[in-house]
């Protein structure tokens, strides 16, 4: 169990392709996870020009690891995995 830094890209493409919603991730996570998350924004992760299934906006980084094409369900999974352990 550890604190995780989650960075959501707020650049144009990421924001309109789902980044805006991802910024509300704390509301979607079980409450007990909230204190383990540092949520922040990024002006641009400079990856938005890529267009494969995995590498497309919106981009999110979890503890420095960048993920593309992330939706809310996936982000919740990524965070829970990263926080790890039994959170209570």
């Amino acid at each position, binding site marked *: 169990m550890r604190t995780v830094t989650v960075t959501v*890209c*707020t*650049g*144009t*493409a990421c*924001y*309109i*392709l789902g*980044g*805006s919603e991802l*910024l509300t991730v704390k509301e979607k996570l079980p409450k007990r996870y909230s204190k383990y998350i540092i*949520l*922040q*924004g*990024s*002006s*641009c992760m*400079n990856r*938005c*020009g890529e*267009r494969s299934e995995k590498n*497309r*906006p919106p981009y999110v980084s979890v503890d420095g690891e960048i993920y593309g094409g992330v939706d809310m369900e996936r982000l919740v999974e990524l965070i829970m995995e990263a926080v790890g352990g039994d959170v209570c």
Partner: protein
Amino acid sequence: MNDSFIEMDACQMTKDGMRICGDVFLMERHAASGRIVATLSDGMGSGVKANVLATLTAGMGQRFVLSDADVKKSAEVILNTLPVCRERKISYATFTLADIRTDGTVNLIEYDNPPTLWIRDGAVRKIERTKEHLNRKDAFRPEVLRSAACTLLPEDRLVFCSDGVVQSGMGTAAHPLGWRMEGFERFLEELVRGNPEISAGDMALRVVRRAMANDGYRARDDISCVVAYVRRPRKLLLATGPPFERDWDTQLAGRLAGFKGRKVICGGTTASIVAREWNRPLHVNLKNRTDEVPPSANLEGVDLVTEGMLTLGKTAEILESHKTVSPEETNAAEHLAALLRESDEVSFLVGTRINEAHHNPTLPIELGIRRTLIERIRRSLETLYLKKTDVMYV
């Protein structure tokens, strides 16, 4: 006056229950001479009928002043032209015409509006007026035009309003006879003494807010306030988009660093370039966002950092709608619109490198083209707010 800028702005509030304002304000800067001509007209009644009367009056007033037509004749033509109200059997709209030259000389023509105020050093100064009687044969009562002239110096202000301001609060315990000219003048003097550099837009906004408060927050009449303020020009540089040639990144950052005035960056890539060149951290501020407008960011040395296209698009909309924005507004587009309106000379530094991410077929078509958006913003600033702008593509 040579290095001064005449800032002019207005704030209006529509009478409670009406969908359209019966006061109309028009202003324009004559391109060749720099002269500003402005008209505030209050049409009889309220709503659409009043708006039609006031629109006709203000439109004609602007054209007559700009063509240097005879004042008395112009006023007669305006009053003769107005349609006659079916119920009241009269046609009527008040007006204040202001003609302000770049050397500070002002000519005013007033017809039944509250008198224009001239403020210097935190005090209202007297403006000498001459009266002239119109002799229209269809007049339903004596008609008197008031003419006045004065010369503005740097830091002087002119304030004019519709009767919705000076009659606000009428019948209340605090203002049984309304706020009146005395209350209005005292308010303006205190406002300027407490805030000597208050912008024209902010001053007009505060007057309207106060008049609304006098009315118990339900405007009993259309309320309009116009302010002209002679000041040293406030400059703003807005950089948006990465330069076409990457070699230009350093110059872009250098231009921003050396600029004397407010600095704004619109665009994540542009902000990253400047942060990299300045070797300073860029922090996104998640608190001030909406679903349509991404959050702003903080970069030391820059007054505002925003996302690019969505924020610029929303800013263009706000400016075009003439929506009143106050400095305490929170989302990035409102903040940017407020900064632009607070400035007098706005320079745009527009990068032309293609952002491949914006050529993604899944993106909404509304996502504009940067150059088109900047042109929309420039057009609004120049025509609606009489600002000076220039643009440089890099």
